[in-house]
């Protein structure tokens, strides 16, 4: 198990995010004082249900949104309040794989252009990188000439992973990457992610509603509920000795084959 050495890759301090009231909606405190450290090489899971604030937290950690208060540091550098231009280093070093590869891949772009897009956007040479990345995620090089709709859900997720790896990131953020996939394909994608994290020495932030998937993938976990982290620790401890009532409720609600047969 990799131990977090030196400065954490990601340090979040006392993050709050309030969505202001509009004419139609009351205001919401989506995040209420969340702090966490993610160490280099760590596989860190964030678990919660809808409305727990996990997506809001993710957007803040990735520099896609600004907190109402609090700070996020990436390798010691403050990223809150930076403009898109100053965030280029983060776009290089941190990449995201989303839940639904159908809506995160542009249907009008060929796979070649999708995978090369982060490189082009960062003004880096593409060369034969696309073919190399496709091979790495288990797709034939000929996939480059085709469009997303010509692939199955699992293959589309492989394309999304290839794109995320293109700029050689240090941190991979995966937001429910297997929730939309069939069971028989889920294992293929989780195995692939595990391989890539090992070979590239990546830090993984893995968001899921399913603690059992997080337990397979991650060594540490933060459980979120109503905008706060209610419990955190090594995933095996949280799994076998949950301390918070909500974690217990969550664990009991998940039906498992082992428990039912």
């Amino acid at each position: 198990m990799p131990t977090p050495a030196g400065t954490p890759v990601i340090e979040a301090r006392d993050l709050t995010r309030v969505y202001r009231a509009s004419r139609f909606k009351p205001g919401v405190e989506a995040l209420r004082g969340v702090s966490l450290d993610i160490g280099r090489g760590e596989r860190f899971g964030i678990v919660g249900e809808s409305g727990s604030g996990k997506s809001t937290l993710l957007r803040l950690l990735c520099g896609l949104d600004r907190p109402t208060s609090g700070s996020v540091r990436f390798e010691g550098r403050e990223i809150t309040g930076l403009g898109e231009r100053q965030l280029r280093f983060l776009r290089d070093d941190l990449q995201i794989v989303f839940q639904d590869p159908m809506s995160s891949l542009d249907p009008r772009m060929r796979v070649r252009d999708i995978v090369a897009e982060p490189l082009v956007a960062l003004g880096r040479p593409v060369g034969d990188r696309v073919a190399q990345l496709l091979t790495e995620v288990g797709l034939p090089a000929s996939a480059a000439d085709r469009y997303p709709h010509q692939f199955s859900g699992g293959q589309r997720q492989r394309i999304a992973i290839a794109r995320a790896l293109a700029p050689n990131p240090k941190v991979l953020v995966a937001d429910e990457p297997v929730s939309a996939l069939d069971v028989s394909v889920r294992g293929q994608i989780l195995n692939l992610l595990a391989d890539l994290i090992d070979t590239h020495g990546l830090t993984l932030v893995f968001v899921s509603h399913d603690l059992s998937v997080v337990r397979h993938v991650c060594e540490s976990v933060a459980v979120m509920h109503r905008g706060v982290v209610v419990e955190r620790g090594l995933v095996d401890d949280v799994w076998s000795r949950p301390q918070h009532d909500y974690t217990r409720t969550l664990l009991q609600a998940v039906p498992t084959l082992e428990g039912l047969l």
Partner: protein
Amino acid sequence: MLSVEALTVRADGVELVREVSFGIAPGERVGLIGESGSGKSLTALSLMGLLPEGVSATGSATLQDQPLLGVPDKRVKGLRGRVVSMVFQEPMTALNPTMRVGAQVSEVMTLHGVPRAEARERALDLLGRVGVEAPRAYPHQLSGGQRQRVMLAIALANEPSLLICDEPTTALDVTVQKQMLELIVELAPAVLFITHDLAVVASVCSRVLVMYGGRVVESGPLREVFTNPRHRYTEGLLAASKLTPRGTRLPIIPGAVPSRFPSGCPFRDRCAHASPACESDPALTGEGHAYACWHPRD
């Protein structure tokens, strides 16, 4: 009570569901499991008379001796919602956004001839039983779980003899899913429960049908099928559903569900045990626990 014989669904000459036969007794809860593209939703839609344009069903299906297939639209309308009803995956698209939920529950009763005042009263009672105490709310004012419970109230309003549930909890949080599954078990008369989630089906059903490539490849008592699967697809699906400890490889089924299945055994292009024998169609054989496989697991 429900009896389905050789149900086949075709579109443009392609067989999407092939020779599916099964029955459901009163009070029984039967699971229909399979991945996307296996034909499980088409099976359900043909029982509801809701197949899309250009898709047609042959074979026979009767519910309490009333035919469900090959009958005029008008007659099917009389049965749908009264004798057989359905809960879909996404409650937001199934509910009318401009109508209060109480009115939507009573509407399905007045449509089938229940007097207005009585329908209103029963709607209140039903919403109470599913735990939604807000009959005057509009769908957008409710949470996903509450909306799905309203759908359940609508589906049960005319006391149907069969409830079909198509992935009713897939879009819900796990804690909410648990409540919904408990309600279905408590309130539904007999259930055909469609899902891709083996743990969910195990918590609701006593019998299970496994579909792949438009066919039932294995069927039987749930505990028996899940602990002693015979078909290689069921075996693979069960193995892939278990999450092994961190640092180990997850068992997988190679490839993906294809858009066109091979002739003979539909699973043979993904199966490690396939042989030339699999080029011909295996029949679903066995009493109680049946399977269609040339090289079954021992």
